[in-house]
């Protein structure tokens, strides 16, 4: 078994705000992150796939293909966007890093080629905060 990781990055705005709660409750729980007019981050995304090496190519999977999948199904949807307003796979969900990592997994997983499995989504919100998701 070999693990292969592609690193990508994107910039986005968001806020942490639960519409079922009052403004005061949101501020008590989410602090500055509840700011009404959004704030934003440079996200760093690590996508790891796993499987056996193909004898003919020496590859687990062509990393250019993996990069293309991440671009099409993730970056084109989230980069320079407002996560709360613009991203269909987060509609109706809290825009936390946890939910974003799970959402990215669900976007990518159906497109991973046969014989290769998605292993992990690691998502940095800041250089000191990251989330890992390994599937359900």
């Amino acid at each position: 078994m070999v693990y292969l990781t592609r690193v990508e990055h994107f910039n986005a705005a968001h806020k942490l705000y639960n519409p079922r709660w009052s403004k005061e409750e949101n501020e008590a729980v989410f602090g500055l992150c509840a700011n009404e007019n959004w704030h934003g981050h440079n996200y760093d995304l690590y996508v790891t796939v796993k499987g056996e090496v193909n004898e003919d190519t020496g590859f687990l999977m062509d990393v250019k293909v993996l990069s293309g999948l991440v671009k099409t199904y993730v970056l084109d949807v989230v980069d320079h966007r407002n996560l709360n307003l613009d991203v269909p796979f987060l509609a109706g969900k809290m825009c936390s890093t946890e939910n974003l990592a799970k959402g990215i997994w669900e976007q990518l997983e159906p497109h991973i080629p046969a014989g290769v499995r998605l292993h992990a989504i690691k998502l940095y919100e800041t250089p000191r905060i990251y989330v890992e998701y390994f599937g359900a």
Partner: protein
Amino acid sequence: MDMNRVAADMNRVAVYRREHFNAAHRLHNPAWDEATNARVFGKCNLPHYHGHNYELIVKLTGVPNPDTGYVMDLKVLSELIQETVLQRFDHKNLNLDTVEFRDLNPTAEHIAMVIYRLLRPRLPGDLDLEVTLYETDRNFVSYPA
């Protein structure tokens, strides 16, 4: 060569404090139509804002105080940046939530210039100030230049 000047320069030391803040913004020139804004600023013009983890490096240059050995107490500098810059910009929308960018496009260049102008009057006059601002790992600016 003025040897006295060279000798004086050899006593000068640069000290740095690194801070960071997260903010939303968009690049938009209200004097232009939508098509021109989209062409010039691309994705950075998208209407619902995007955001960055900004890294701020404040550089002060001067002669260490003979009593303390400090160019400036970096704890004091840190608190000054906190009060003057971070409380204004951290977790804010630069376009909507700050007076500084109400009528000024919040490019990295402009943000660095604004931070310089906010800090300069709060710092001792005999220290030189330089502001470096990273918008992403690979895009950064410094002021003055």
